[in-house]
């Protein structure tokens, strides 16, 4: 055992010496490799973190949302449907929700106006999402004037801001009370944007939804599970897009390594010959080359992953923000909850270390099985 360890250590000694011989090239390679792992790991960590964030924050979303469709489009729903829904077995609670979009020409962005069920603002008052307030440069006490549905300008006094810890869900929110909301949008009493239901047993939500569909045809029913899956799908898709791209880059990288190695230079072949002539087995040569590849790629993995972690969870995923942000004017500030999935860590490790190591090793195999007497020739 001691001898085995000492032997591996000696081989590693020479691998390191070997790597040191082409310092500039190997450092360049390491840098490119670190960058690649960094991007790959960033995408995976960021996508997963966003997905988890969505699940966490929306864990208490309404179990069922019922909308009315009119000619295939979302329409206002009559309040009297609430009673019918409340009467359904298993439905614990049903509320009418009032929310809608207002295009703010100053910002050239949509804001979401919503009426809170509890603690609504007073008449002519509003509570703003932190992102929106920041974008408009507004503070509590200021007044916000908006042109309503009837063309009249209405002024809202800002009585408070939503906590900036909640920006990820509240960036563009503008909370007003019911009367102001109806007046502003011209929505008559007795109608809601949609209805939100809470059920006693979430496992029965599907059954209840089916019942709603048969009793109130023309409704559209959205289950909480669907909401969750929507966000899973959204982030999967985005992640998949980037991963496909990065996977291609990784494959190209391994290919490059293969190409580089399969054109073993005369010098390298000569060196392998020398090693074999002075008593190295084919296996020893392979082990040394293995260590070379493994050291380089493991190093790249460790550095790339740690950097990616810092980037995503301490740097706010700065590189991805422009992608997600797109044209958004009201982009929330948020930090993601750090979490590492060990399975994912392992698969990233293998994905980044194995192909490269294998690609560098395979061509050496051919050279290392050659007769060592080549070195005797001049």
């Amino acid at each position, binding site marked *: 055992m*001691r001898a085995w360890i000492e032997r591996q250590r000696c*081989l590693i*000694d*020479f691998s390191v*010496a070997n790597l040191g011989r082409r310092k500039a090239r190997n450092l360049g390679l390491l840098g490119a490799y670190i960058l690649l792992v960094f991007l790959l790991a960033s995408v995976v960590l960021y996508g997963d973190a966003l997905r988890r964030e969505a699940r966490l924050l929306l864990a208490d979303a309404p179990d069922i949302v019922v909308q009315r469709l009119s000619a295939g489009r979302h329409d206002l729903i009559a309040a009297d449907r609430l009673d019918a829904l409340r009467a359904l077995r298993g439905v614990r609670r049903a509320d009418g929700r009032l929310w809608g979009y207002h295009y703010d020409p100053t910002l050239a962005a949509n804001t979401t106006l919503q009426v809170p069920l509890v603690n609504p603002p007073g008449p002519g008052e509003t509570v703003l999402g932190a992102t929106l307030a920041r974008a408009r440069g507004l503070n509590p006490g200021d007044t916000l004037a908006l042109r309503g549905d009837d063309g009249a300008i209405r002024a809202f006094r800002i009585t408070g801001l939503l906590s900036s810890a909640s920006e990820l869900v509240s960036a563009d929110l503008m909370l007003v009370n019911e009367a102001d909301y109806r007046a502003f949008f011209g929505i008559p009493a007795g109608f809601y944007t949609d209805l939100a239901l809470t059920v006693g047993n979430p496992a029965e939500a599907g059954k209840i939804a089916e019942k709603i569909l048969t009793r109130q045809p023309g409704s559209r029913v959205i289950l909480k599970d669907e909401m969750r899956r929507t966000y899973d799908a959204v982030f999967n898709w985005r992640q998949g897009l980037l991963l496909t791209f990065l996977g291609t880059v990784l494959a190209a990288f391994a290919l490059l390594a293969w190409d580089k190695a399969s054109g073993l230079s005369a010098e390298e072949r000569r060196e392998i010959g020398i090693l074999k*002539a002075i008593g*190295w087995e084919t296996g020893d040569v392979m082990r040394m080359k293995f260590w070379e590849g493994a050291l380089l790629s493991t190093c790249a993995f460790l550095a790339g992953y740690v950097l990616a972690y810092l980037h995503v969870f301490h740097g706010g995923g700065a590189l991805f923000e422009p992608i997600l942000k797109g044209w958004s004017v009201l982009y929330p500030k948020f930090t993601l909850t750090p979490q590492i999935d060990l399975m994912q860590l392992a698969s990233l490790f293998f994905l980044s270390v194995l192909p490269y190591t294998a690609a560098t090793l395979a061509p050496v195999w051919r050279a290392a099985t050659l007769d*060592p007497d080549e070195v*005797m020739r001049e």
Partner: protein
Amino acid sequence: MIELSSVDKTYNAGKANEYRAGRGVDLRIKPGRVTALRGPSGSGKTTLLGLIGGLTRPSSGRVRLDGRDISALPERFLTELRRATFGFVFQQFQLIRGLSVLENVMLPAAPTGEPHRQVVERAMDLLGQLDLADRADTPCQRLSGGEAQRVAIARALINDPPILIADEPTAHLDSALSLQILAILGELRAQGRTLIVSSHDPLVFDAGLVEHIVDLRDGRVVAEQ
């Protein structure tokens, strides 16, 4: 004792450029003596050394080391044998560029699993004997010819082999350096090692070191004394 019996070596057998570098060689090399293969360039000296040292296998015939047929050994055992029994000094030095003198000398010991400290000590010891102690950290491409040859000798000796094979050890050196190398070989002989060298340098044969001369021509042994 090394015995070669009717050894043939054919390069590129069956191809247009087929070349018979060894033809029916019969040879006995006694331990503890200095044997020299002599012949002009292309006469098959290097080929024969390769066959003796187990670097390559004969196309036909047998090579025996202490009665054991090594021409049929599987690669693994042959490598082990090479490591433990033979030290090689190649005609071209064949040091690895970019590695230091010390690293080059230690190379053959790497697969043995011997404690590192021990190997370093022995290597430094050898370098000291060969007057190279202060060059240990020098990258070997910066060495002069004489130094490189001595490093090659140190490398050949790191595993303390009983047999040293040196292919034209004075070929690239001037007379003074050649004599220096011959003196070193003389010391190794005095340590009781078996030396097998090849050369067409008269200096080697005039030095009175060689006890057994094998004359080669076109892959054949033409005379022995």
